[in-house]
């Protein structure tokens, strides 16, 4: 049997290569002189330029731009507040598709005012970019780092830690109470997934189509899910398919941590872009919203023999700590593409966590009235606390 199989695989290999060779040949011909002008038209080039982020310093505006169209484009002039303004473009004004550049405009912008900027290409097309509220972009200084770390601590670490302090009370719950709580966690997490993915698809609409942002979002989603599922499969030996309580708690904390990284990213960047006023209401909203995440983390380990304070602290740090990292990334290197990717990764991680929680249970168990009620309540709690964030 081995001989014919080998013969076949050589034939199969040739069969696999033939279409590839034809394809390469066709592409080469399309770019050759013979085919030049085959599909050419007299239409003007299709130009698209997008501003990925801006950086404001003292009397200087920087724009990081990308040629998001299929044709080369040349940035010829720049207008600020309706007036032509001196500027430089590095490394070059002539951008090939997907090439990025930085436009630096020395301009006396005023704190708190909106600034409209227009990029004029060599063909006379204009691309507008609006800075909603001008405010200096923080440089990476010790002061700025500690400031955004504080923001992350308030929005991510403290709320999760507060949630964990329910632990002694939750340990005293009965069997059905525990089931309710586990499924409440599922409801909480389901809300985070729904929220993140809708936000992701909304953000994707703002991004240049050439980035295929929806596909990128799903790549992050599937990648995170596959990665965490693989980790779980490899490490949960001996317990069958369902993860042990402690193991599950770490998974939940990791999933929530990744989610909070994305949340920190959004908060840090919105703050820097002047799109967010961090009033007491907003911080309170995030605190309430994220406190419930603490419950999700501890619910799998309520039946473990002892509480282990160190473990609780570790879980809290894993779930809440990444918020600080997210705030830093958001504040100092923000791009909407990053934000999109992290929304996808966060959602994929949480879906995996939900799967791990429900994986050890039968469908009958999950659909018991008390558990269904738990899921519904969890979802509604997140919805309600989310209103506080949305209203701020």
């Amino acid at each position, binding site marked *: 049997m081995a001989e014919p199989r080998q013969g076949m695989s050589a034939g199969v290999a040739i069969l696999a290569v033939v279409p590839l060779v034809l394809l390469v040949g066709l592409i080469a011909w399309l770019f050759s002189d013979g085919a030049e002008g085959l599909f050419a038209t007299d239409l003007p080039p299709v130009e698209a330029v997008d501003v990925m982020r801006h950086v404001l310093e003292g009397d200087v505006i920087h724009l990081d731009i990308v040629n998001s169209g299929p044709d080369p484009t040349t940035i010829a002039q720049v207008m600020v507040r309706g007036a*032509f303004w001196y500027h*430089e473009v590095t490394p070059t004004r002539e951008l090939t598709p997907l090439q990025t550049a930085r436009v630096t405009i020395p301009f006396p912008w005023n704190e708190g005012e909106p600034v409209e900027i227009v990029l004029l290409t060599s063909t*006379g097309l204009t691309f507008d970019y609006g800075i909603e509220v001008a405010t200096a972009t923080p440089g990476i200084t010790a002061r700025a780092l500690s400031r955004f770390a504080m923001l992350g601590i308030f929005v991510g670490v403290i709320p999760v830690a507060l949630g964990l302090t329910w632990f002694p009370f939750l340990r005293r719950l009965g069997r059905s109470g525990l089931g309710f709580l586990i499924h409440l966690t599922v409801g909480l997490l389901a809300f985070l997934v729904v929220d993140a993915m809708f936000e992701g698809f909304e953000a994707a609409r703002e991004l240049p189509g050439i980035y295929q942002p929806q596909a990128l979002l799903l790549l992050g989603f599937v*990648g995170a899910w596959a990665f965490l599922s*693989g980790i779980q499969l*490899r490490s949960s030996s001996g317990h069958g398919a369902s993860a042990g309580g402690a193991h599950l708690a770490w998974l939940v904390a990791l999933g929530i941590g990744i989610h909070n990284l994305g949340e920190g990213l959004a908060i840090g960047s919105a703050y820097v872009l002047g799109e967010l006023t961090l009033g007491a209401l907003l911080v309170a909203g995030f605190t309430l919203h994220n406190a419930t995440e603490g419950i999700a983390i501890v619910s799998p380990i309520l039946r473990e023999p002892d509480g282990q304070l160190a473990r609780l602290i570790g879980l809290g740090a894993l779930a809440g700590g990444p918020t600080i990292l997210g705030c830093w990334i958001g504040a100092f290197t923000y791009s909407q593409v990053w934000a999109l990717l992290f929304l996808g990764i966060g959602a994929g991680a949480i879906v995996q966590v939900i799967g791990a929680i429900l994986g050890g249970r039968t469908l009958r168990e999950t659909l018991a009235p008390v558990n269904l009620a738990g899921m519904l309540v969890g979802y509604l709690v997140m919805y309600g606390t989310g209103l506080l964030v949305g209203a701020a």
Partner: protein
Amino acid sequence: MRRMGEQGRKTLGMAMAIAGTGALAAAVAFVLSTGGGAVASTEHGMSGDMLVGLDGLDLTPYRNTTVGDVGTERFDPDAYLTEELESTTETLEDGTVLRIFEVEAVNKEIEIAPGVFFPAWTYNGQVPGPTLRANEGERIRIHFTNLGDRPHSMHFHGFHPFEMDGAMLKQQVPPNGTFVYEFEADPVGVHLYHCHATPITQHIHNGLYGLWIVDPKGGRPPARELYMMMNGFDPNFDEENEIYAVNTVAFHYARHPIEVRQNELIRIYLANITEFDLINSFHVHATFFDYYPTGTQPEPRDYTDTIIQGQGERGIVEVRFPHPGDFMFHAHKTEFAERGWMGLFRVIPDEGGDG
């Protein structure tokens, strides 16, 4: 999965972890390639030149200008200031001078600001079209050829018979067609000619216009004479001008000041053809001028430093600069000035002057 052995599960787990890692690494690498990893710049200001003002003030953020310069091989705004279209003359039997011009309508790409190109419709390959100038009472004949790909015409302001009006649909000259316009140079003054084909806003905006000047018998007093056409461009077709100028090129005379002599009489033939905006205006610094609307009357109507013109209005500005130095002239609609309609007179000291 339930029936999978421990080894199978571990292998699958490893494969999934690797696949997930690969997917995430690809995504991160892609985001980094988009410039998403750029770190906030901490370097301050610009490379190279720092401009210093009074008391050491850093002027770099205050430069309201386009960047670069426009090539003058296609169209030279400095030449336009003083050039008229060449003509040939004959004397008719009754002693009248017959003045003959040749004009072609032709499509041509022009540069309206450094690096910004506009597919214009032109007379003789330039925007504004060439200045046509004649003496009062002369017979004018224009051989017009349409080399464009749309019907065009020449409609002159002034007295002429119906057949020479160039305005009605049936008077439009088809592509590759010709027409001979003939009429008397009348009345005296500074006027316009422009295409009257439909849609007229597009035909005018795209560049089909120019000055038509009729000098009085015996001429005007000697002066340094300049032609200025206030115009605007809407290169992105949103029916709003992005670029304003006199004589097409934004900020040209700010980069290349017009040199004049202290106290010399300067006569500016000024017209406004700007589309989309209701008015345009002309303001000059550090002096006042006599203004002759349409140039039809011997006496000035106004003595001022700012006048307004609607579209199609024109007039003669007679001005002297008593002080040497660089003096701005610009639209006092400052929005237009910021978008290119700003220039400089460089006043050279007269010998024995106050310079």
